[in-house]
């Protein structure tokens, strides 16, 4: 056991004066951190605050320029991942490091085999997994192929990998980003169980609610520095948010009451069958009026993506469409030349796609080119046969300043901006064109709080200018804060619609789980807590 010989009562981890610079960028500056044994310690901070760098140092990916690491009270040098594993540190990365076509057992023993032959390792691991499963509720079929497991189960395999290597300290990087709410709850139960067994857990996240729900202590990072370490019970979300960004943040979006006008978007009986013959949209009816934000809530994979793509003019290849879409009273074609993204933009539909890196930007192109994409046919950007690059640059520069995109360098490639600033580039491009209808998917996924606030204000401003907004987000908080009306999608249908002022999380949660509370007696409306080993919402994808 790596913990053997550790000084009794010494903290599990102690960092003293850790610094790390990448060229001119000081990623970590004189970091001190004490994590007591048997606690769950949250580390929060905006994107680029240095959380991941710090954890990479702890896991041996980087060597610190200065500072000291003490595990169990003893100073050690962590030269590589092997050394970190020997010191009893296990890491669950945001993007899992699993071999997809290996079984769970094979993944668990990889790198921690007992000898040259696999058979003894496999049978020992089988016994160990059985024990861990009953101890911590970490049930996974040891012979299942990883690629056939749900994301929640894959994460369990990562945790099992660490525990099999005798990890005493478990670091989890943004563990709930990919989980359904039920899976996240189960994960938290597992983490509490591990803590109660004496394991030390570090949870990196930017979700304040998770910090409040599960951690014992919390440390806040800002621009490479550790700005505070407090007991979770003695703080609150507002204070933490303030520490993260260094100024007051509006957690609620301040917006005047909506003054809906004429219908801008009308969708009637929209159906979509994808190339595999799966019906993704099963008769969608929607209406959005001018000066109104309609939020679409739902667990990811219930047709929201397909709805955005169909409305935005790029349904996946081979999809069959049916139904009616009207913009300002005029029908929009569902197929053919008039139904592509360019035609939709010309018709007045702006689109911020869900995945900015795959669909919103070309990562290797510069910021000014990205600000023009989709609108580069506009007459003001033409110079005879050629594009008027000077005009496009000037236009982009204006938008960069207007949206406070940092660094304000239009010649930088999109991939060199932080997540929040990348998103601002996409939102600036679409919003500044003043579309009649803005389609916006996951506007603040992986975006820091400062940028979230800014983007939310812009969406509200567009609404107040008399435009219609269709907002799709898996963050229920965001939907409830921004929307005037909320529609819940489940299995390709609109399960129900609520006015934002009257909606409650419980009510929306039921709709998201496919239960209409209006049709069910109240006590039956709440789905029973998922039994260990089962995942609610797993079949919807």
């Amino acid at each position: 056991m790596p913990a053997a010989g550790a000084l009794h009562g010494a903290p599990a981890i102690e960092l003293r004066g850790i610094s790390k610079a990448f060229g001119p960028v000081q990623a970590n500056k004189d970091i001190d951190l004490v994590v007591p044994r048997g606690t769950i310690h949250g580390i929060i901070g905006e994107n680029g605050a240095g959380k991941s760098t710090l954890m990479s140092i702890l896991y041996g990916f980087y060597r610190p320029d200065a500072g000291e690491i003490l595990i169990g009270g003893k100073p050690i040098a962590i030269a590589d991942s092997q050394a970190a594993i020997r010191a009893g540190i296990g890491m669950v990365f945001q993007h899992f490091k699993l071999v997809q076509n290996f079984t769970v057992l094979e993944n668990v023993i990889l790198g921690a085999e007992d000898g040259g032959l696999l058979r003894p390792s496999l049978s020992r691991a089988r016994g160990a997994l059985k024990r861990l499963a009953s101890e911590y509720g970490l049930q996974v079929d040891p012979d299942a192929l990883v690629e056939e497991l749900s994301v929640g189960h894959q994460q369990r395999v990562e945790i099992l990998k660490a525990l099999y290597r005798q990890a005493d300290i478990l670091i989890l990087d943004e563990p709930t980003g990919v989980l359904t709410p039920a899976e996240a709850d189960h994960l938290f139960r597992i983490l509490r169980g591990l803590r109660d067994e004496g394991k030390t857990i570090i949870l990196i996240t930017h979700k304040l609610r998770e910090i409040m729900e599960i951690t014992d202590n919390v440390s806040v990072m800002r621009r490479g520095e550790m700005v505070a370490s407090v007991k979770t019970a003695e703080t609150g979300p507002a204070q933490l948010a303030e520490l993260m960004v260094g100024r007051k943040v509006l957690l609620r979006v301040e917006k005047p009451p909506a003054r809906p006008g004429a219908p801008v978007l009308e969708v009637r009986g929209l159906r979509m069958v994808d190339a595999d013959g799966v019906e993704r949209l099963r008769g969608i009816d929607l209406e959005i009026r001018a000066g109104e934000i309609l939020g679409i809530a739902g667990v990811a994979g219930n047709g929201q993506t397909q709805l955005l793509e169909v409305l935005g003019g790029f349904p996946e290849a081979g999809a069959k469409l049916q139904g009616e879409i009207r913009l300002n009273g005029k029908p929009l074609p569902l197929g053919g030349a008039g139904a592509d993204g360019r035609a939709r933009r010309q018709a007045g539909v702006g689109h911020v796609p869900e995945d900015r890196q795959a669909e919103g930007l070309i990562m290797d192109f510069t910021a000014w080119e990205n600000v023009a994409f989709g609108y580069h046919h506009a007459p003001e950007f033409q110079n005879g046969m050629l594009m008027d690059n000077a005009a496009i640059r000037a236009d982009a520069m204006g938008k960069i300043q207007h949206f406070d995109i940092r660094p304000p360098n239009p010649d930088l490639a999109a991939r060199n901006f932080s997540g929040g600033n990348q998103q601002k580039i996409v939102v600036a491009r679409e919003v500044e064109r003043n579309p009649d209808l803005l389609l916006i998917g996951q506007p603040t996924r992986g975006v820091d709080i400062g940028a979230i606030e800014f983007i939310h204000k812009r969406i509200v401003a567009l609404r107040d200018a008399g435009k219609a907004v269709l907002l799709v987000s898996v963050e229920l908080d965001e939907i409830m804060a921004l929307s005037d009306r909320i529609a819940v999608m489940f299995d390709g249908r609109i399960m129900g619609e609520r006015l934002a002022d009257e909606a409650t999380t419980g009510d929306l949660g039921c709709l998201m789980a496919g239960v209409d509370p209006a049709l069910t007696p109240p006590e039956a409306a709440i789905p029973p807590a998922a039994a260990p080993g089962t995942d609610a919402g797993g079949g919807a994808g």
Partner: protein
Amino acid sequence: MDFATVIQILDSAVRLMTPLLLACLAGLYSERAGVFDIGLEGKMLMAAFTSASVAYATGNAWLGLLAGIGGAVAMAGLHGLASISFRGNQLISGVAINFLASGLTVLLGQKIFGLGGRTPSLSGAARFGEITLPFADTLRPVPVIGPIYAELISGHTILVYVAFAMVPLTWWVLYRTRFGLRLRAVGENPASVDTAGVSVTRLRYGAVMICGVLCGIAGAYLATGISAGFVKEMTAGRGFIALAALIFAKWRPWSALFATFLFGLMEAVANRFPNLDLGIITVPSMFMNALPYILTVIILAGFVGRAIPPRAGGEPYVKER
């Protein structure tokens, strides 16, 4: 077609498939570890040349084999350096190795032996002789089993038996050993190996070196087993056929045996019946000789099921947070 002819064709198929099988397994190790290798051809050619040269100089086929392995491993090292250490494009490195081998063997051959790129003919101990297995002659009169044992199974060079033994051995290494588990993992998701604290670079070099050794045996067999000396471009695309067989076999050892047998059989049939008379029409010899290559095109075009290559294949590994 009588039984004796069938046996003869099968016997010939076994000989002809041997270099394909060795090269195919060589590619299997490399590609399973995530390093694509279209330089099998070049490595075999180089090995054929070095083995023939050394076998001629020393009069010893075993020293020739060693030299063949050395030649191919040197080329494999080059491929490893380019594609693992320097994270270059694996296809371009493979093409370069093919050109390098093609030019270098002829150039050196002409410089050393002055025979227009050939090596002098090998004879006696400079070649691998055929081994007669025990009881081959005793069993010969036994119907069916006798000819199969005496003609088909007995009477090959040691390298043929090595090649066939490599199939179960490769399967065992791949699926029953720690090295095999890590090798397969590094070809699917090198990050999983890296975060487990195992060196991706060392694993991949190991796989590429094994690939070199097997290509070396294949080349040595061509020059000192099946023929008697090196001839310019004597691999004649076998490296590419082995690659096609590898895809056909979906990167699995036992399937590789079957796939390479199919190619060997086609070549054997073409050799036995240059003008295949089907009664109505006579298939010209050119077509028969082209058969293996036609099958290669069909396989590579994806007509024979969907083959999923190792997921990290072709991608140099760059450590990221």
